[in-house]
């Protein structure tokens, strides 16, 4: 489970809109950050499958890149 938040979003009982429409929007997360996060998810998957590479983070992203995971419970 890489992001608890997203996981709950999609599996919470009761049929929230995200599940019904199959679409998740994060209005408060910028595209750059979101993109980086998606890259991270992919990297995490590869890593768990045995491909041990480094995940590179551009220094200017670090601050915001700390907030988002906190939000997403990653």
């Amino acid at each position: 489970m890489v992001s608890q938040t997203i996981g709950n979003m999609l599996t919470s009982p009761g049929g929230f809109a995200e599940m019904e429409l199959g679409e998740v929007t994060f209005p408060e997360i910028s595209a750059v950050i979101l993109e980086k996060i998606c890259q991270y998810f992919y990297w995490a998957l590869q890593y768990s499958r045995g491909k041990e590479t480094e995940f590179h983070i551009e220094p200017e992203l670090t601050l915001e890149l700390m907030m988002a995971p906190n939000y997403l419970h990653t």
Partner: protein
Amino acid sequence: MSAQKKKAFQIEAFKHRVVVDPKYAEKTWKILEHAIHEIYNHNASGLSFEELYRNAYNMVLHKFGEKLYSGLVTTMTSHLKEISNSIEAAQGGLFLDELNRKWAEHNKALQMIRDILMYMDRTFIPNTHKTPVHELGLNLWRDVVIHSHAIQSRLQAILLENVRRERSGEVIDRGLMRSITKMLMDLGPSVYQDDFEKHFLEVSADFYRLESQEFIESCDCGEYLKKAERRLNEEIERVSHYLDTRSEVKITNVVETEMIESHMHRLVHMENSGLINMIVDEKFEDLGRMYCLFRRVSNGLVLIRDVMTSFIRDTGKQLLTDPERLKDPVDFVQHLLDLKDKYDKIITSAFRNDKTFQNALNSSFEYFINLNSRSPEFISLFVDDKLRKGLRGVTEEDVELVLDKVMMLFRYLQEKDVFEKYYKQHLAKRLLSGKSVSDDAERSLIVKLKTECGYQFTSKLEGMFTDMKTSQDTMQGFHASHGSDIGDGPMLSVQVLTTGSWPTQPITTCNLPAEILGICEKFRNYYLGTHTGRRLSWQTNMGTADLKATFGKGQKHELNVSTYQMCVLMLFNDADRLSYKEIEQVTEIPTSDLKRCLQSLACVKGKNVLRKEPMSKDIADTDTFLFNDKYTSKFFKVKIGTVAAQRESEPENQETRQRVEEDRKPQIEAAIVRIMKARRVLDHNNIVAEVTKQLQSRFLPNPVVIKKRIESLIEREFLERDKGDRKLYRYLA
């Protein structure tokens, strides 16, 4: 400075708007409150999870976590109050159903709420040590719904009523019961216990108390046990279907206490159907059931064991003191074996081979077998009977079985030395009369005795076998060298017995007929020729003879008689009529033996080769004997010889007892000396204890006798008394 343009490290301010709106918290909360409402009203589709999650996140981030939390509590509580009302409104049978449904809904709602409030759960709650959302939801349910006055008592009543209905045979909705009890467990084990289990156990106890009373008045023991077993299984099944597993041991305890423990004694002692009756009638199934049920209850098995033990002891005691039974030793011992078999079977098939029961059985047997001082003699007689004829035609395995059973009885004997004495006597008779059914069986038993008691016990017995073998070889040698001499004379067969190995016999007088004396001398010379330094004496009281007799009408018979009887009969070759006195004078056979031998010759139907005047049953000094011309028998060979070993008469028994006592004295003395030599100094009580321990595999020494032996040893200066303490003894080297 490098020509490369470095990317500037920029730190930018938050892209979010810094909130200054004072009503921010209230607005945000309203959104969430609304969402909770919708969730409880099953209207959550269409709501955006992300939005709700973000709102909750923001509240917590901007330090409004407290407001969020208390808002949650209030909202949830009010919803639950509504739910509680609707459950209360449900009628009769629908109550549980409604409760169950609402519970499921609440759980779903709770999960959704927990998911959107996840951020608060992760950060705010641990920091403030508040109850997490999920647990909060359960607690509220518990406090508002389950413990609401109306619902609490009604729930309990309905649950218990359902159980009662099921117990009286009705079918109930087990799935529903399962869900409800699971709900209680989820709310906390103490909820399950206090709201349900406690009362369940109480009510069940009452139920079973009543039912068991009913049953015990109307059923016999076997039926009652069946019913108890059924109820027990029912409860176990009930737990597996819709109660918490930890309730199993508690409810079975209730059933065990009410149905079994309270009525234990009454059941066991029930007239006509209790434990004793079951044993006597060999009701294995009922006994097995009783064992399994009573095992669950403390002291249940102890009760069964004690009652069984005292019954066995009484039966055994009766058997051993019944004069009728004791008349036939072989039959008596067979009864003992049958008794043991019976109880072994009960213990194996009904009591699961329980060791404690085995031990109780063994100790009971040990107890009553030794009540009768004749037991060792009787067991030896039983063996004698088996080895003479009882085991004829029996397979080797079955022979072993019988012998093992005998050994089992032998082990119970306390006076094994008495058994040894009798066994020796009986074995001697068997060997000398050639009456043993199987040499292998004889030897097999000796081996078993050796394994049990050691070499000492059987060395003399083995000596007897050796003598028999050696005598065969001697006879072969004798006939080889003197065969031609014998011609028409009597044929002699001699067994040479080593004095130490065979039972001691008193030396008796007996004048052998002239014809016999001759060949006896020949043998004596032959034997002493090859074995110098030995002394031979004829044991006239132990021999046998085969006589060819011709009667009045010319009918010939071969008579197998004892040596004494041969001497008497040979006299009638020269006279037709002889008085008792005359016979006694010529033969010099001791009186009691002579009378016995004449009795078998003259007073037994079918074997009366002599006639007696007068025709009375007993032999008197004044009787006259005549050769019975008119004797007939359909057999050519007639056995008139000494009969097989018989149980001793009272005086004979006394005599043997005395000899045994005499034999014990040196054994006790040897034990005392052994002990004192090792310990040097020892007090009286300890000597007695040690001596008893050393000798108990042979017999139980009498403390009085031990004391006497000590005194005798003091007189003979093996020991001395301590000058200061009279109870202390010292070994004198």
